[in-house]
């Protein structure tokens, strides 16, 4: 029980590390996922091919392999950055493929007539997109994006094994100090539960506020 109280700073640092990874990787994943989703629905064939290739490859890549290649491979090209940045890069790129699919299926749920009506009112492409299609797509996209980001938070544990400071990695320090390993893991598990439940609560609020009324 006193594992937590004795080592609160260690846990807190790990917890913040996981939150930091999750937040930065989420931002990267959302931005990149949006770009790739727009590629996948673009009228230009080569954009579509690029988006499809990105999604197909990354969705079928084991995340450990991606971490392995990015964290240990990129430095060989003379690209030396902190491990956390590499971890955010790997995690963000990996998750962007799932975000992309969620966004694309959201856009595809908007009925064709909506866009046709907007265009026949004389709206430009930008106007159609920002004031007709995206607001409607946004509604149906909230739950899948939420569960993707929860998966991201859970996947961030892999970074700990590649010597990035985060929650799971704290077990090493604590077991070296001779604390009860089972309690150590109980508190780590609780930390992850707090993060995933917080994300899910956030998306529940978003869903209540903007979710599609079925």
């Amino acid at each position: 029980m006193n594992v937590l109280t004795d080592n609160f700073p260690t846990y807190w640092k790990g917890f913040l590390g996981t939150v930091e990874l999750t937040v930065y990787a989420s931002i990267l994943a959302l931005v990149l996922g949006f770009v790739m989703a727009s590629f996948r629905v673009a009228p230009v064939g080569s954009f579509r091919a690029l988006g499809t290739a990105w999604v197909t490859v990354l969705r079928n890549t084991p995340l450990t392999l991606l971490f392995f290649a990015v964290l240990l491979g990129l430095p060989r090209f003379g690209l030396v950055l902190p491990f956390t940045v590499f971890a955010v890069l790997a995690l963000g790129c990996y998750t962007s493929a799932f975000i992309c699919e969620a966004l694309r299926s959201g856009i595809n749920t908007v009925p064709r007539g909506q866009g046709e009506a907007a265009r026949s009112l004389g709206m430009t492409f930008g106007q159609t997109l920002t004031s007709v299609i995206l607001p409607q797509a946004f509604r149906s996209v909230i739950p899948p994006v939420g569960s993707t980001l929860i998966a991201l938070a859970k996947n961030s544990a892999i970074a700990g094994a590649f010597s990035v400071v985060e929650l799971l990695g704290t077990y090493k320090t604590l077991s070296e100090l001779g604390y009860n390993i089972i309690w150590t893991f109980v508190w780590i598990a609780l930390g992850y539960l707090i993060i995933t439940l917080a994300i899910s609560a956030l998306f529940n609020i978003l869903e209540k506020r903007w979710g599609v009324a079925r």
Partner: protein
Amino acid sequence: MSRRMKALDHDATALYDIPGPKTERRHRLYGVLSTLLVLALVGWVLYLLFDTDQFTRTKWMPFEYKGIQELLLRGLGNTLKAFAIAAVLSLALGTLLAVGRLSDHKPVRRLATLFVEFFRAMPVLVMIFFIYVALKMEPLSALVAGLTLYNGSVLAEVFRSGINAVERGQREAAYALGMRKTQVMTHVLVPQAVRAMLPAIISQLVVALKDTSLGYLITYEEFLHAGKLIASNLDYDLPFIPVVMVISPIYIGMCMVLSWFAQWMSKRQRRNPKTDAADVAAAEPGTLLPGMQ
């Protein structure tokens, strides 16, 4: 091909009309420009690879040796072994948990729900590390146990939603015929649900296959581990990039084949009139939002 055909070709989208001749020319220009850009990017990466001497004879030599080929194959075999065991066990655990969640007895239902929700919310790696470090199991058992607990819980949800998605009339008709619950399940609901669920189950198995690579982190001697051994060999000038270039296509290829199988299956299902009763949500990725099923 007429323009109308082309419009039917890709998914119907509200984003743009069928392009006219002028727009088509512009799109073709964008296409050429972006292709050039991608080619330039590929060229730059190739240049970097050559510039950092990744294609030297020494670095690629190890793959010619029988011992090293065997090491890689053994690693691949271990990966597939862990996947096979974990897949079978997760299907079994998933069935058990789904039965629990669909039980008529409240305590059983509660217990199964708690189990499923807990293991879906935990990162699978935390579970694997817990089993490996705290329960001091062997790497293979720890990996398989972790994967089974997680994927079994996810599959339980797939099974449950699949059973519940079978049209209500089927269940009612079966009960009206005087069947017992077990009979309703085994003769009426499960056969219909399984057909519709197959794509979701296979997609979840892809996740399990991908996650076997977590074994690398607990020193299970799987594919990635074998790669790491070769990559850290000084005799061959640390051939890390060549190793990645050999391993990733194999790994990604295996997952892709399984994913394509799932897609092919779901396409076949969609044409099959027998299954349009049940519409199962995809299992991936991971957790659904609690309280939102």
